[in-house]
């Protein structure tokens, strides 16, 4: 600790603390431009200069660490003069066109000049002008360099946080311009981080251009719905139109200013004209508007005539905790069935194995804590596309904290560049690869590890065999084992590919047990792709367990796949689908279509008329996340509030109320009547789900991570022996392995309704290794036909470097050409052929 004085006030701070942070702790804010906590230090703008007792020259507070007994003054005349001079200097070339600048009103330069600036400039020289007209850099970015203060935050954020590095500093001195290669169109993540960090109006949002002033906006601080990173964002509207989402200095989420392209530009779906605003009932084959009373009466009638085990519910893992809790309660206590699931994409067994392997039924764990470990090992996840902001955090924290990152994945990704070791394994063979790593560790520590449960199932396996089965070279398996074995602490981040492909959970369980036995601290963090996937499981929206992973009193229920199978035999009387589009998502479209058709009565509750909604018997208009109250739990186990910006559209209603109304109609003991709000339901949750006991929500937000110790570890890991370690077989007719997952610009069905994101992915694409494409006579941009045993589709080819040659990727969520038509029921990795021509 170091003790020093700031403006006469004595404080003690840790060694190495920057003067800037020390002053802040003492309660004095020092103005800055080029400084930003997540970024490397630059110290170029000199806005933060302060006086240090005994030193004649002023010093930059953002790069100077404190020393014992320093006396720092941040508010003397000399400092104020210097600040004014720095601003005068910045303004000497500044365009000063605030009246037409989108940034005006929230511009750091404006605020700073207002507070510290000179009243008058003395520079008489010509201003440097980079260009006359603003120029577009991407479908979402427009640039005006005449306002630049050359802080290089844009360039640094793009490289150090986003990991793209497509912006550069061109030229020098007053001629220095931060822009793209030859000012051309950017082929990048379109995340808008450059816009967010720019203190002035250089990088601007195209969709927001000339639309509003910040003070005319109506806003709500809420949680992004596009993945389980759960970024805090402010959604803002003007005159009823949602016009931007922003994470700024004052939104105060764990994500700081970080959002990805989906989170920043994808929320225009809220304005989509096609939002549902009234209940629709199928009458003589067509869906016609009806009143709520009528709609609910029909459900009541149908439920009365249905057998409990012939009723099921499938909800999206984007609903709130309160809604999901209520849904499972209505199903279990009202209907009397455990047929409730929160995903149409994967099976209950696979999600249960994943929950066990990642200890989701234990306590929460923050990314920041994970990044304390020496080594970060990312497995089974395409994190750069599925959880973009988690990817940013891993990138910049591993660089600034000097951590080792290792990646094992099927496809190449942006995070590879930040990784010291990358392993590309074949799809569905993460388990075999992890078995290889555990085997290596076991061989080297036999005596110590012989007692570890399940280690015996490694007998009979060899590195050679596992290398062949997984497609990872023995050297890479060994290098990873070596790195793990030399680390004191390891964080394993495990993603949704493990559930999607039912692969690797056994290997992960054994690996973490082994590492623990070797006296290492082990953290396991799940990386999930739906905003409230973790909450959905916590709430018991799962056929195999109740709230808090409790054992069910009665029988376990059916998952979505089993419900569809039952339906296909004509044995489902009623299916209640909320926010999930089974036809677009269930991995075998043809089968799902046939099954859904045979459902006795299909109720779909959504904000858009989805493919499944189009064939429903009754459609109920629910509310989007800016039209409801509640909480969601992100992948870390962080409970965060969703707050409304406005009322549900037209006759649409909050989903919680709809679910509760259905409950009250069928419940015998009146348990769903009375005043049911998100708050009252949260009280019930706290009683029923012990790990939520500490969660406190109020006007400011929620405090509280999920707490461990109280939750029952009821779920068991599968054994590594159950992983697929057979040799891969060639298939002449269908040479490629097809994998799917989220796209950077699209996850689920909502992104398809965002016109901004639709500009970023115009058509369904298939990704293939560049060398493989070349040798098959294909080039980037070709139209190709993809065929499997299940079906076929047409896609635009995109070639990728460093891909495995036999693996191709089609994102999970294209509205046209949905990938699930290529799947056959039960098939996790379809084999496909790819041929030129449409």
């Amino acid at each position, binding site marked *: 600790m170091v003790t020093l004085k700031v403006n006469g006030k004595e404080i003690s701070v840790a060694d190495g603390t920057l003067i800037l942070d020390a002053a802040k702790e003492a309660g004095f804010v020092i103005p800055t431009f080029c400084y930003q906590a997540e970024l490397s230090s630059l110290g170029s703008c000199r806005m933060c200069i302060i006086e240090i007792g005994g030193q004649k020259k002023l010093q930059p507070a953002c790069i100077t660490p404190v020393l014992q007994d320093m006396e720092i003054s941040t508010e003397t005349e000399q400092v104020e003069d210097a600040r004014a001079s720095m601003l005068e200097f910045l303004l000497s070339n500044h365009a000063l066109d605030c009246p037409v600048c989108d940034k005006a009103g929230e511009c750091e330069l404006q605020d700073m000049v207002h507070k510290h600036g000179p009243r008058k400039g003395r520079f008489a020289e010509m201003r440097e002008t980079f260009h006359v007209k603003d120029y577009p850099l991407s479908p979402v970015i427009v640039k005006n360099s005449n306002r630049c203060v050359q802080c290089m935050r844009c360039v640094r954020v793009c490289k150090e946080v986003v990991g793209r590095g497509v912006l*550069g500093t061109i030229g020098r001195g007053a001629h220095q311009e931060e822009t793209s290669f*030859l000012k051309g169109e950017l082929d990048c993540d379109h995340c808008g981080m450059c816009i967010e960090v720019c203190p002035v109006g250089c990088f601007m949002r195209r969709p927001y251009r000339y639309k509003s002033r910040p003070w005319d906006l109506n806003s709500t601080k809420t949680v992004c719905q596009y993945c389980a990173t759960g970024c805090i964002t402010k959604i803002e509207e003007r005159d009823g139109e949602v016009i931007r989402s922003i994470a700024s200095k004052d939104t105060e989420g764990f994500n700081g200013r970080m959002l990805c392209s989906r989170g920043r530009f994808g929320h225009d779906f809220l304005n989509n004209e096609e939002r549902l605003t009234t209940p629709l009932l199928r009458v003589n084959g067509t869906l016609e508007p009806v009143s709520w009373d009528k709609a609910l009466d029909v459900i009541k009638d149908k439920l009365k005539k249905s057998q409990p085990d012939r009723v099921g519910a499938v909800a999206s893992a984007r609903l709130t905790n309160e809604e999901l809790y209520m849904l499972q309660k209505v199903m279990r206590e009202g209907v009397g069935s455990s047929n409730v699931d929160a995903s149409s994409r994967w099976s209950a067994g696979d999600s249960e194995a994943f929950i066990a392997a990642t200890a989701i039924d234990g306590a929460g764990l923050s990314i920041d804590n994970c990044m304390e470990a020496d080594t970060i090992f990312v497995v089974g996840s395409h994190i750069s596309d599925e959880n973009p902001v988690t990817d940013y955090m891993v990138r910049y924290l591993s660089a600034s904290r000097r951590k080792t990152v290792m990646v094992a994945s099927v496809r190449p990704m942006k995070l590879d560049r930040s990784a010291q070791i990358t392993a590309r394994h074949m799809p569905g063979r993460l388990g075999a690869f992890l078995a290889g790593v555990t085997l290596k560790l076991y061989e080297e520590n036999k005596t110590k590890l012989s007692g570890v449960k399940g280690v015996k199932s490694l007998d009979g396996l060899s590195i050679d065999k596992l290398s062949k089965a997984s497609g990872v070279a023995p050297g890479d398996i060994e290098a990873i084992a070596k790195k793990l074995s030399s680390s004191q602490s390891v964080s394993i981040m495990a993603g949704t590919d493990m559930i999607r492909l039912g692969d690797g959970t056994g290997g992960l369980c054994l690996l973490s047990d082994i590492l623990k036995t070797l006296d290492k601290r082990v953290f396991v963090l799940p990386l999930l792709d739906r905003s409230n996937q973790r909450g959905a499981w916590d709430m018991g929206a799962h056929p195999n367990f109740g709230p808090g992973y409790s054992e069910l009193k009665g029988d376990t229920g059916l998952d979505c796949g089993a419900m569809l199978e039952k339906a296909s035999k004509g044995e489902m009387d009623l299916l209640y689908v909320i926010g999930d589009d089974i036809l677009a998502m269930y991995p075998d479209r043809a089968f799902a279509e046939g099954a859904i058709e045979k459902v006795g009565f299909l109720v779909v509750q959504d904000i858009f008329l989805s493919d499944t909604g189009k064939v429903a018997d009754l459609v109920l208009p629910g509310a989007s996340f800016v039209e409801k109250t509640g909480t969601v739990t992100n992948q870390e186990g962080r409970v965060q509030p969703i707050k409304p910006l406005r009322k549900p559209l037209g006759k649409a209603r909050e989903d919680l109320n709809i679910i509760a109304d259905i409950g009250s109609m069928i419940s015998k003991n009146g348990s769903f009547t009375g005043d049911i709000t998100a708050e009252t339901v949260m009280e019930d949750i706290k009683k029923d789900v012990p790990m939520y006991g500490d969660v406190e929500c109020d006007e400011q937000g929620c405090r509280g991570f999920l707490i461990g110790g109280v939750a029952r570890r009821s779920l068991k890991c599968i054994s590594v022996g159950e992983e697929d370690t057979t040799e891969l077989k060639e298939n002449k007719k269908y040479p490629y392995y097809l994998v799917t997952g989220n796209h950077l610009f699209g996850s689920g069905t909502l992104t398809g309704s965002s016109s901004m994101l639709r500009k970023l992915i115009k058509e369904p694409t298939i990704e293939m290794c560049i060398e493989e494409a070349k040798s098959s006579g294909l080039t980037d941009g070709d139209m190709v036909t993809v065929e499997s045993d299940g079906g076929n589709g047409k896609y635009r080819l995109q070639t990728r470097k460093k891909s495995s040659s036999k693996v191709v990727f089609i994102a999970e969520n294209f509205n046209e050409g949905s990938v699930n038509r290529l799947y056959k029921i039960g098939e996790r990795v379809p084999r496909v052929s790819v041929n030129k021509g449409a």
Partner: protein
Amino acid sequence: MLTDKTLEEIERIKKKYPNTKSACMEALQAAQREKGHVTECDMRAVAEALDIEPVEVQEVGGFYTMYNVEKPKGRHHVQVCRNLSCSLLGAEHIILAIEQELGIKTGETTEDDRITLSTAECLGSCGTAPMMQINDEFHEDLTVDKVSDILKGLK
């Protein structure tokens, strides 16, 4: 496009540095040797060879006056230093004299493509200021008369 010979040279250069990004300056120099300047395609090719972003190559190319990024220049590229030492010793007069002699402004090229005139920041030869660089060579302790002779000698 870069010739195979240049690309091979870049591969050799790459080996000298701990990471490929550090090889950027020398690789760009190799690229420039082909035709006296580097084009958009060349920068992309250098980036591809070094596995870095094209903009990173442009950053290097745009920072140092020794690289001629993009613009095809005259056969002789005259760069007059106009930084502190040179300015104190009359760089402005030198520039003016050249402009008058050639009938062009700074940044322009003579009609016969013989000479392109530009100015540069400190070229590291302050001791012999004022000075200028023509292609790869320094001309130091300039006077207006001396400059005139030098220009006449450029074919």
